[in-house]
């Protein structure tokens, strides 16, 4: 940083920046970047003129690893991309391979998948809400969210033994039958959790500080979202009523009755409202799925050794963060020839530059939070 003084000719000296413009590095070790994201901000005083994201700090080469593993072996790796919504990742991967080998999971497995995926959507939104509110100075929501999230993680742990990287599903269905009392416990959780959403809302929805910090911040319109390829709650917050669960139903979502939550203004506040409503809709779906849980097998007939015919397939699901797609090319061998993951966080993050322009530095924190990125998925 430099101040221009008249008796020193600083402008000639290239080691000093122009006094009106300042480059500021934010991250990669910054608590509000939710991981290792580095943002280079171009500032005019407090005002942001532009932002450039530097990513790749968490790059593990998942797509390369996939080419060296069998279809079954790659299953656990997908959990480690978006690690707060690992169930969704697993569902997307299993369904894509099922599409490739032309198998459909039995109805019971589909219901179990929907229940766990929706529970996972709630936990993902809880992590988002807690950390996002914490970034903006609200301390309580993070404790409330993590307290309630624990109850859902307990169900995951009881079902498959893992809390975060669950690897709950297999190609063709589910590995495990539900444990005794599963339905009752999930329904009890729904009863327990619904009033908790009201609790979160009491803390924030009409909170004056929250409204001041989020209303009109990071505005992006529907057409801009579509041009930038932004999906998920960010797209819906801008008023586009589009959800893959409705547009291209998978895993039996067409059987459940739920609404797509949308906002109007495309600002941070609307995206908050959309996610809160999505949690309520998830509870609604879970209730229906548990109540109509059919009996029957949980695994389709799938060969022990997966050797799909040559071909390629693209399939995508509505992950908590947006459209999560898998593109798999098979050459008829035991290992996938190529797996491409279309990560929602990576694509959504691209809109950051557009959203922060003209705002203040403090708003950058709010906007990174509102896009809801997980760096494990951005970098893969």
């Amino acid at each position, binding site marked *: 940083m430099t101040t221009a003084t008249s008796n020193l000719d600083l402008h000639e000296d290239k080691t000093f920046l122009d006094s009106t413009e300042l480059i500021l590095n934010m991250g990669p070790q910054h608590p509000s970047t939710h991981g290792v994201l580095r943002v280079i901000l171009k500032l005019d005083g407090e005002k942001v003129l532009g932002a450039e994201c530097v990513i790749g700090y968490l*790059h593990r080469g998942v797509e*390369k690893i996939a*080419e060296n593993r069998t279809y079954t072996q790659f299953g656990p790796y997908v959990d480690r991309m978006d690690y707060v919504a690992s169930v969704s990742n697993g569902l997307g991967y299993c369904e894509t391979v099922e599409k490739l080998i032309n198998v459909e999971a039995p109805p019971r497995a589909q219901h179990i998948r929907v229940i766990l995926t929706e529970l996972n959507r709630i936990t993902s939104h809880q992590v988002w809400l807690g950390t996002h509110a914490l970034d903006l100075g609200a301390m309580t929501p993070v404790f409330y969210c993590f307290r309630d999230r624990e109850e859902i993680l307990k169900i995951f742990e009881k079902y498959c033994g893992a809390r975060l990287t669950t690897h709950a599903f297999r190609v063709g269905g589910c590995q495990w039958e539900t444990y005794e009392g599963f339905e009752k416990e999930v329904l009890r959780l729904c009863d327990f959790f619904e009033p908790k959403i009201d609790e979160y809302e009491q803390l924030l929805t009409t909170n004056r500080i929250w409204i001041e910090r989020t209303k009109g911040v990071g505005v992006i319109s529907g057409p801009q979202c*579509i*041009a930038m*390829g932004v999906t998920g709650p960010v797209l819906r917050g801008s008023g586009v009523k589009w959800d893959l669960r409705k547009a291209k139903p998978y895993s039996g979502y067409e059987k459940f009755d739920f609404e797509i939550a949308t906002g109007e203004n495309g600002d941070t506040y609307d995206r908050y409202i959309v996610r809160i409503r999505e949690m309520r809709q998830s509870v609604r779906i879970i209730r229906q799925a548990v109540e109509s849980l059919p009996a029957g097998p949980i695994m389709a007939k799938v060969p022990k050794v997966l050797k799909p015919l040559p071909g390629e397939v693209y399939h995508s699901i509505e992950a908590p963060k947006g459209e999560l797609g898998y593109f798999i090319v098979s050459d008829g061998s035991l290992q996938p020839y*190529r797996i*491409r993951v279309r990560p929602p966080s*990576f694509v959504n993050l691209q809109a950051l530059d557009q959203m922060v322009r003209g705002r203040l530095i403090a708003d950058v924190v709010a906007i990174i939070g509102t896009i809801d990125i997980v760096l494990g998925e951005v970098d893969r």
Partner: protein
Amino acid sequence: MVVDPSIAYEVLQILHNDESYDYCVDVTAVHYPKREKQEFDLIWILYSFAQNERIRVKTQITDGATVKSVVGLWPTANWLEREVYDMFGIKFEGHPDLRRILLPEDWKGFPLRKEHGIKQQDQAWVQANLGIQSGQ
């Protein structure tokens, strides 16, 4: 839909302008080193909100050939094309800012090419920047 690389851009343009494919889901590539010429498949996945239809456009290009960038049609292709360049070394003509995105800018090698081994890395870069023998 498989198209010839010479008309790929026109096809994409028509899909964008006239057929309402307004959302570019993904841009990606597949490497086939055993094919003589046309070593790469380049794939665009497009979606139309109006028709609720998804379409895959594929073209086969030679190693070293440049492809016209679609950033002008779908701004989202910016990072997606950068990733394809980063991983495969396919150059996009008219891209506003074609740099590596996930790997360091001065990294050598394109990891998703088939001849690139899974444990292979840019030793010189690791040595110079991290001061260790191996990053693994």
